[in-house]
C-alpha cells in the first residue's frame, strides 16, 4: 500500500548517503581536481533539470540553454549592476525561467508541436534569446558580464577564495536539492500524471488528466531547476557571455548527462555527469601530454573533441538507453 512512499523514502536515503560521502571530497581532492568535481556537479544539476522535461515528461528539449542562460544572466546582471546577492538572483532567475518555459511550452503545445518540430522550436527559442541578448548594451552585448571580485569571502554574495571548498559544498547542496525534488516529483500525484501524459496523452485525458497543463508544469519546473545551476555557474567561473549562456553547445551540454546516463531515471543524469566530465578531462589530458604514437598532434587543438565525439557515438550506438538506464533495465529483468 505504501510502496510508493517507501520508494521515495528509500531513494531519499540513498541520496542522503551519497551526499554524506560526496561531502568528504574536498578533504582529499584539491586544485584542478576540485574544479573538475564542481563541473561534475553543474553538469549533474542541469542534467537533472533537463530530465524532468526531456525524460519524465518526454518532451525533448534541444534548447535548454535558454533556461540556463536566463539563470546565469539574471544572477549576473542583478549582481553586477545592482549589487544584489546571487541567492536572490538565483530565485528571480528560476522564476523568470519558469515563466519563459511556461509561455513557450504552452505556445508549442497549443499548436501541437511534436517530436522533431518541438525539438527545433526549443532550439529556435534559445537561439533567439542568444541573439537578443547579444544586442543588449545594458547586458554588455557580446562581451558578456564579469563578476566583480570582492576583497573578502562572503556567503551572502556567494564568493570565496579560490581554494575554498565552499563552492563545492554549495554545488553539492544544489544538486542534492534538485535530485530530491525529482524524487518527490516522481513519487507524487503530479509526477504520475506527467509520466502518464508522456506514455499516452489521450489515455491520460480519458483518465481525467489534463495533458497540456501537466506538460507546461513539467517544462516550467525543468526550466527553473536548470536556471538555478546557471546562476551558480556564473559565481564559480566569474563570467558569462551570450554564447556560453545561450549557445547550442550549452543546450547539448545540458542534455548529454541525461542521455548518456539514461533519460527518465532519477539517477541517470548524475551517473551521466560522473562519466561525461571526467571523460572530457581525460581526452583533454591526452592532448596536453600525448602518448608517443600521438606525438605529432601534441599541442594541436581538436583532438580532445575528436576523441570525445567518437566515445559519444560509441555510447549512443551500444548503450542506447544510457549507461544507468541500460543497467537498470537489465537489473529489472
Amino acid at each position, binding site marked *: *500500500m*505504501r*510502496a*510508493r*512512499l517507501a520508494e521515495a523514502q528509500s531513494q531519499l536515503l540513498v541520496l542522503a548517503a551519497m551526499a554524506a560521502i560526496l561531502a568528504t571530497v574536498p578533504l582529499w581532492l584539491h586544485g584542478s581536481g576540485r574544479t573538475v568535481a564542481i563541473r561534475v556537479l553543474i553538469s549533474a544539476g542541469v542534467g537533472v533539470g533537463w530530465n524532468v522535461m526531456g525524460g519524465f515528461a518526454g518532451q525533448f528539449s534541444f534548447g535548454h540553454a535558454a533556461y540556463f542562460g536566463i539563470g546565469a544572466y539574471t544572477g549576473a546582471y542583478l549582481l553586477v549592476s545592482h549589487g544584489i546577492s546571487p541567492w536572490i538572483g538565483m530565485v528571480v532567475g528560476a522564476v523568470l525561467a519558469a515563466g519563459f518555459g511556461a509561455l513557450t511550452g504552452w505556445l508549442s503545445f497549443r499548436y501541437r508541436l511534436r517530436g522533431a518540430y518541438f525539438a527545433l522550436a526549443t532550439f529556435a527559442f534559445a537561439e533567439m534569446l542568444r541573439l537578443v541578448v547579444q544586442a543588449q548594451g545594458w547586458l554588455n552585448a557580446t562581451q558578456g558580464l564579469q563578476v566583480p571580485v570582492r576583497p573578502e569571502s562572503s556567503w551572502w554574495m556567494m564568493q570565496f577564495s579560490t581554494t575554498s571548498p565552499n563552492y563545492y559544498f554549495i554545488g553539492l547542496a544544489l544538486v542534492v536539492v534538485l535530485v530530491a525534488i525529482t524524487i518527490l516529483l516522481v*513519487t*507524487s*500525484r503530479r509526477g*504520475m*500524471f506527467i*509520466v*502518464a501524459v508522456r*506514455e*499516452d496523452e*489521450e*489515455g*491520460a*485525458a*480519458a*483518465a*481525467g*488528466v*489534463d*495533458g497540456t497543463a501537466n506538460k507546461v508544469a513539467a517544462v516550467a519546473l525543468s526550466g527553473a531547476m536548470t536556471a538555478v545551476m546557471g546562476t551558480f555557474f556564473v559565481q564559480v567561473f566569474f563570467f558569462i557571455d551570450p554564447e556560453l549562456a545561450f549557445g547550442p553547445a550549452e543546450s547539448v551540454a545540458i542534455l548529454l548527462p541525461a542521455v548518456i546516463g539514461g533519460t527518465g531515471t532519477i539517477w541517470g543524469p548524475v551517473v551521466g555527469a560522473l562519466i561525461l566530465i571526467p571523460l572530457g578531462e581525460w581526452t583533454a589530458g591526452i592532448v596536453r601530454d600525448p602518448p608517443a604514437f600521438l606525438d605529432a598532434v601534441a599541442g594541436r587543438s581538436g583532438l580532445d573533441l575528436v576523441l570525445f565525439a567518437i566515445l559519444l557515438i560509441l555510447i549512443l550506438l551500444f548503450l542506447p538507453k544510457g549507461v544507468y538506464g541500460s543497467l537498470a533495465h537489465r537489473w529489472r529483468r
Partner: protein
Amino acid sequence: MSDLLAVTGVTKTFSGLRAVDDVSFTVEAGEIVGLIGPNGAGKTTLFNVIGGRLPCDTGSVVFDDDDITGWPPHRIARRGIGRTFQLMRPFGSMTVLDNVTVPAATGVTSIVEAREQARSVVDRVGLSDQVDDLAEALPTAARKRLELARALALHPRLLLLDEVLSGLTPAEREPLLTLLLDIRGEGVSLLLVEHVMAAVMRLSDRILVLHHGQLLASGTPSEVTSDPQVIEAYLGEEDLLAGS
C-alpha cells in the same frame, strides 16, 4: 427523473462527410444502452464527441444537468464519464497498479488513498495477480480489463465502452459480462459499442442503431432485431444479428 446523458442534434463532419448526422438520444441512470451499426456508421466518432475528444459542429451533450459540449476530455472524465478505447491506450512503462492509480488520483489529493482505491478496482476486474506487471507486457485480455479498470477508477456515473469484449475468447468474455452487470447494479449507466452481437443483446436494456451517421432505430433488443430497416442496413451481416 431527468436523463443522465442527453445527446441532442449532434452533427460531426469530416471534410464534407457527415460522420454523425443530427443524432439525438438519452441514457437514463442505471441503464445499459447498446450502440450498434455497420463499420463506419459513426459509433466511435459519436463516442469521441461525447468524451470531448472531438468538437461537434452542431448539437449539444448534457450530462447530469451540466452542458458539457466543448469541454476538454479530462474535464469530462472528472465530471463522471469514464471511457475505454477500442485501440487500447495503456501507460506502457507503468505498472498495472500505477495505471489505475492515475485516474483514482484525479479525484483525491492523497496518493496513498488513490493507491488504495486503485488496488480495490484492480482486484475487482481480476488483475490482482498482475498488479506489479508493466502494462506493455500484458496480453490483450488483460489489457481490456486494464482499460475498464482505469475508467472505473474515476468513479464514473456513465461508462463509454468501445469494444471491450471483442478480441476475447468466450471463456474470457463471460466473467467480464458478469462484471459489467454488477457495475450497472450500482447505478452506473453503460453506453457500449460492441461487435459481439450476442453480448450486446444480452446486456442492453435498449439498443440504438447507427447507420451512415444517422440514428436508424432505437428500442429493446427484440424490437430492433425485427425492424426491417435495421435488417436492410445489416444486409449481408444477418448472421451477426442472428447471434454468434
